[in-house]
């Protein structure tokens, strides 16, 4: 069973009478535990594909299975449930809740799952410790650096031990050093948990953290290269 099996995915955007095809028969498979990076020029459909994989968008046609589950057959509520239980998201701009502390932000998915406050806090504290931010548990996003915020976002994405992590340009808002640190941490944590990851990025410096790099062009996905062995560092 594939972690992700996207078969002949088509997606177009309509603006008035104009129809712009973005994905034109994408075939994309990811094995369990694999870390695949999606690269390509702006407008090539990377984020659209990631949104479809994350059940945030629906494809116009094609078949999508996440860990064997046919996503097309799911109701909106079931898709929410799938996102909450099986998929972790890391966003380009972190998307933390500004009014909440780091530990509260990490605990959000747990609380959405109905965990009690105390239990959620204990689990969130473990994750914050894992990303090296135990001392920032009470800090709000406005008081943390971009690198720290992204680490909180990574902790949030992993807190429910999802099977799949989808990351959209996770280093785009970070300087080079922070980007490397965050990706090293990200790689290490998903390896520890055996999580499958799909990362959209423009940043060639982080390709080394991928098991496989795929390039998007003309609405299609093509395997590009096998990163060097140092990717597993």
């Amino acid at each position, binding site marked *: 069973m594939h972690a992700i099996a996207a078969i002949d995915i088509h997606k177009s955007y309509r603006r008035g009478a104009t129809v712009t095809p973005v994905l034109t028969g994408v075939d994309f498979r990811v094995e369990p535990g694999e870390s695949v990076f999606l690269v390509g020029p702006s407008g090539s459909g990377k984020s659209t594909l990631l949104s479809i994989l994350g059940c*945030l968008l629906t494809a116009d046609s094609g078949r999508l299975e996440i860990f064997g589950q046919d996503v097309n057959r799911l109701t909106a509520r079931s898709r*929410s449930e799938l996102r909450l239980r099986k998929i972790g998201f890391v966003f380009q701009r972190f998307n933390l*809740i500004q*009014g909440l502390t780091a530990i509260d932000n990490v605990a*959000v998915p747990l609380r959405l799952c109905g965990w009690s406050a105390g239990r959620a806090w204990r689990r969130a504290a473990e994750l914050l410790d894992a990303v090296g931010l135990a001392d920032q548990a009470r800090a*709000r996003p406005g008081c943390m650096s971009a690198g720290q915020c992204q680490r909180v976002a990574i902790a949030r994405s992993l807190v429910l031990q999802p099977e799949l992590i989808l990351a959209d340009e996770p280093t785009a808002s970070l300087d080079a050093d922070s980007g490397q640190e965050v990706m090293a941490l990200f790689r290490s944590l998903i390896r520890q948990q055996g999580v499958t990851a799909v990362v959209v990025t423009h940043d060639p410096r982080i390709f080394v953290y991928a098991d496989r790099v795929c390039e998007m062009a003309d609405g299609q996905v093509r395997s590009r290269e096998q990163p060097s062995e140092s990717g597993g560092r």
Partner: protein
Amino acid sequence: MVEFAIKTLVADRGKMFTALVGVVFSIVLVNIQGGLFFGLIQKASMLVDHGRADIWVGHKKIHNVDFPRDIPRRWVHRIRTIPGVAHAEPYVVGVSQMTLPSGGFEPVFVVGVDESTLMGNAWNLTQGRPEDVRKTDGVIVDELEDGKLDQPAVGDLREINGVRARVVAKSRGVMGFLVNPYVFTTYSRAVAYTGKSPAYCSYFLVRLQPGVDEQAVCRAIRSRVPQVEAYTRDEYSRISVNYWMTRTGLGISFGAATLLGLAVGMIVVAQTLYALVLDRLGEFATLKAIGAKEHQIVTIVLAHAILMALAGSVIGLGIVALAQRLFSSPRAPISISAELAFGSCILVAVICVISAMLPYSRIRKVDPVMVMR
């Protein structure tokens, strides 16, 4: 989700404060306006509420305690024979004029009570005793009406309808709905002060034996004396209040002012909640993206509204209690019942929840995919 709502609300203190101002404004306005209204309108039934009579009997068409129509006094004997009646006494309420030492005059409501039972006499006396009204020429006036009556002291003489009257006691806060002061005296002197015939009176005040059904006695009175109407104390109190409510538009004017204030406060709350949500659309999109369900989003928005309603109600009621302590007086009583206070909080909470639906409709339209853009 409630805890989440509390934390995000408290984090944005500026907006929370603005919304709280709206809620507090509404609570204070509803309670003070309502309290003034009830304080004022309760004066319309003061004589009934404090009269110690279980049943008020008057002319067939009575509609206000201050404006009775005379009935033959001899009918009291028929009422006294009705089973269950312990006492039935004639009672006079009439208009007259008091001549003042300065040469001026003041229209007054003269109230005449039975000399033996003193049922319906003045209450809350600050000088003298209720039974002093039996003294020669004795009348009881209210100290808050001193200005109108040329500052009468106990023992001072006045003239009512050309008949001598001596102030023997003074009450505090016995002031009717109208501007005319009440003057309490005995039945026989009240007849002289008002120029009425001693053969007539305004009401019969009836006390019942313990455990007797009031309504049954009222029916018996109407049956025995078909020319009169008999009401329980509560009924006649309500009728007297309704007289002013329905004939003056008082309820409408107070109610309109209250609703206007409520509307202004709630517009502030709705606008603030909307602004709060607009600022956080991205955060709601994030919650939806990571798997929050619709009912969880609704819970957050409703919790924001209810939290503000709760906090605003507590602060608002605190201000109301302080204002009541500082500004309520017998002349302008602010009468805030538990029902009014509780009702205003419920009303404000309901309107806050309705106000929250506007921003919620905006959140509903948020597509979680926006977090990827």
